[in-house]
């Protein structure tokens, strides 16, 4: 199973029901008295956020959220494996492993990771809900998954216009995989090489996808290249050379007992 999401921008009215659903499900904290506490400026911390662009004399909105990239820079740069892909390719964060280096926040070319540093009283609804001070992003509501069945994320459930579709890319008969295969739903900025798994159906006669769904951050050296350099060159170099230095140090220590030349 390979879960993917499509946002049909022709159907989306911008009612923000998806944002409200995401916040209630993942961001808000619930106090014992049943009160809901939100961060200040809460829409900023929603895992799906509206973004408006000027297009000609109109203003159009799109939603930005984690693309669950196949070749995810955030996963590749994460030193501890706290950012990882589960068996279905959903990009998640294991907070027990996270050391808050925030490399993943910078590495995401779509700028979808947020960090909430304020106070928030009450309990989290589930283990993948917002963790204060840690990076946060869409999990496709993975906490709703039961067994190996496809589930329904909160935003998809809440959308009154069925503008959000969620399905299995590996199900050839499914609506989602057909829309993608027929090129009706497309991923933005394929040139970044991240292979996003969030697709958009652009508005008719609308802007090019490269212009509007996300604001990709064009770095001088892609984060994936830095991660590759670290993992295949710098780390092995460090381990072998320091290992050799320690080994030679020991040999030297043994040989220098009573040797007048040594220092």
């Amino acid at each position: 199973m390979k879960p993917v999401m499509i946002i049909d921008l022709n159907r989306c009215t911008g009612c923000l029901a998806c944002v409200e659903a995401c916040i209630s499900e993942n961001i808000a904290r619930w106090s014992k008295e049943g009160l809901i506490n939100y961060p200040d400026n809460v829409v900023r911390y929603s895992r799906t956020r509206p973004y408006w662009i000027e297009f000609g004399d109109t203003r159009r909105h799109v939603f930005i959220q984690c693309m669950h990239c196949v070749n995810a820079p955030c996963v590749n740069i994460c030193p501890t494996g706290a950012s990882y892909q589960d068996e279905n390719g959903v990009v998640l964060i294991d907070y027990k492993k996270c050391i808050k280096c925030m490399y993943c926040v910078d590495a995401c070319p779509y700028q979808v990771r947020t960090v909430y540093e304020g106070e928030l009283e009450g309990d989290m609804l589930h283990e993948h809900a917002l963790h204060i001070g840690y990076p946060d992003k869409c999990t496709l509501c993975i906490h709703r998954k039961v067994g190996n069945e496809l589930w329904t994320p909160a935003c998809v459930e809440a959308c009154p216009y069925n503008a959000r579709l969620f399905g299995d890319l590996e199900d050839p008969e499914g609506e989602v995989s057909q829309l993608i295969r027929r090129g009706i739903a497309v991923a933005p900025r394929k040139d970044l090489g991240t292979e996003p798994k969030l697709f958009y159906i652009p508005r008719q006669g609308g802007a090019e996808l490269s212009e509007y769904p996300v604001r990709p951050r064009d770095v001088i050296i892609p984060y994936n290249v830095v991660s590759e350099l670290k993992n295949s060159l710098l780390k092995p170099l460090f381990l072998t050379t320091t290992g050799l230095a320690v080994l030679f140090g020991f040999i030297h220590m043994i040989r220098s007992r009573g040797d007048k030349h040594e220092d």
Partner: protein
Amino acid sequence: MKIKRWSLLARVTHWLLFIGVTVGFITGIPIFLGFKDPIYSNPDLIRTLHYYLTTIPLSIAIPLIILRGIEVLYRGAGEESWWPGWRDIRTAVKIALHWFGLSKDYPKIGFHHPMEKLLILAVHSGLLLLGASGIPMAFFDIPSEIRNLFILAHMIGFILVSIPLAGHFMLAINPVNWETLKAMFTDGEVSLEWAEKHHPEWAERIKELRVKAVGE
């Protein structure tokens, strides 16, 4: 007879470097090698230590290193600069050949072992790279577009510092060097016998200087 090996300035600089580098290494290695426990069980505390307990001692050490360079130039007490030259590289090769049993000759060692000079150069270059990349990342808002260049520079600096320091650490715990290690901790003095054994060229220079001083 006791002779001065480490001036007060050299000792203070060394211990500032020791604190900054040790804290930086312990708090930085989980990020480089990718593990959390036990060091990063409190990430906020460790990050604060990494930012401040490395930056402050190292920032004090930098002007002291410059001062020490000036001191070595003008003190004239037989101490030589740590800056390696071609002669040091040739000597280092001879020592390596001797160490691996490929040559019988063992060159005379001056105030600094030539390997030590190369090590100091690598450590200082690495520290410069670490500071130039780490301080902006820790205390300034670097645009994300170029932040990974700083991360890369920081990793290269870390390697440049760590490899020689692993060797330095092994030499420091070697019993044949305990006298100079003790000198670094205390009054900076070693015995002439120790110097004759480990740094004969330097010991000879010191003796010559003393003979001259007595003659005058």
